[in-house]
């Protein structure tokens, strides 16, 4: 019998190892898997690669990840702290203690989607003519210059959704899905925290992300 529901954060996070690459969903405060991020911080793993749209949201969840230098590499679209004074991650990057890939948000989303969809690489017009693509492979299609972008995958994805069932099917509330849907497809192991576990199973109409993309589900109601 399929049952992807786990009982506690330790079971949810089992197997995450030093050096792992981890995608984390979230845009603004929507879809941030706060319980899982804090559990990650408590694991004291080093050499992590974090893949998330806006890095400040991880820092807000659990400053220990950066304060304790757990992260070696970041792939993001927004690597800027909220204050005039630099954040710990900005200082680490400026000091060369952390490497950074900064991407346009649409390229970030599409690279992750490609990673889950078995598309190893694609061309996009975004960022052509900018400093981001200097020295990169470019090619014209229909008179428009495009840059080659490769798929992005990860060892783990951490997501937040509103509801799940034992099959791993997910229902997102509001704008919770954001990058999470694509991340779930691109990670080897996808771990989701949810407000509710549906005992009866989600109806097909309710399923925003099929359970095939989800390996573990943890009930962790949102802190208000």
């Amino acid at each position: 019998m399929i049952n992807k529901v786990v009982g506690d954060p330790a079971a949810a996070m089992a197997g995450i190892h030093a050096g792992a690459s981890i995608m984390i969903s979230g845009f603004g405060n929507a879809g941030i898997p706060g319980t899982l991020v804090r559990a990650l911080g408590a694991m004291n793993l080093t050499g992590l690669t974090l893949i998330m749209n806006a890095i400040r949201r991880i820092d807000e969840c659990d400053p220990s990840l950066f304060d304790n230098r757990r992260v070696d590499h970041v792939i993001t679209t927004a690597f800027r702290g909220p204050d005039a004074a630099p954040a710990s991650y900005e200082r680490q990057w400026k000091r060369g203690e952390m490497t950074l890939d900064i991407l346009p948000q649409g390229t970030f989303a599409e690279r992750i989607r490609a990673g889950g969809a078995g598309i190893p690489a694609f061309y996009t017009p975004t960022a052509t003519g900018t400093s981001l693509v200097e020295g990169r492979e470019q090619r014209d299609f229909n008179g428009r210059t495009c840059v080659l972008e490769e798929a992005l995958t990860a060892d783990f994805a951490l997501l937040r959704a509103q509801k799940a069932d034992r099959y791993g099917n997910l229902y997102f509330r509001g704008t919770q899905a954001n990058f999470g849907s694509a991340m779930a497809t691109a990670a080897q192991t996808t771990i989701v925290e949810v407000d509710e576990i549906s005992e009866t199973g989600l109806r097909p109409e309710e399923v925003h992300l099929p359970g095939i993309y989800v390996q573990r589900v943890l009930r962790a109601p949102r802190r208000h």
Partner: protein
Amino acid sequence: MITPLTRHQMAWRAAQDLADGAYVNLGLGMPVLAANYAPAEREIFYHSENGVLGVGPVAPPGQGDPELVDAGSQMVTLRDGASIFDSAASFAMIRGGHLDLTILGAFQVAANGDLANWDALSADKGPLIGGAMDLAMGAKAVHVIMRHTTRRGAARLVTECSYPVTARGVVSRVYTDLAVLDIDQGRLVVREIIPGLGHDELAAATDAPLTFGPDCRELTAPDLAGGI
């Protein structure tokens, strides 16, 4: 005495050009204010790149859902006919050329339509791109709202951007606190100018040649509560 437009007045002016039935993405800052000033009889679908088509007003205090936000991380409502989708689908919509218009803020716009709005090259801070590059490349039209000059008086409308470029040759209209300008085949054409400002004074505040359209009009905006 010359009175430059306030932030809200610039947003108001940009909003007057929003067409009935248009699908529009408004960038953070002044652009997003434009939603408050679109003519009421026009149905406009505001797109938010985190996955909403049909963003409504910001939620009343205490009634917002922290899991329903716009690209500025504000808790919002939805208008009739709204839909929600994930970020990959949202940027497919943007990149695929389906949005009629995006209005963005900018540090600089060049006379050839180059847009610089993603990085101010701060020594201590990290880079922030977000969705601007995709919006600038993908939308059918790109309009910009920005002050005509920096606080120190340097021109923002330039012959060539000195800030890192977001996208090349994409901007078609610019709303400043002094004027409304179209970018037409590499030329900055002034369509509207605020009362009392001379053509030569506007030219002096601009680092690229200006053309004054034959129908150049006065740029006026109502008094608005939104302060400066």
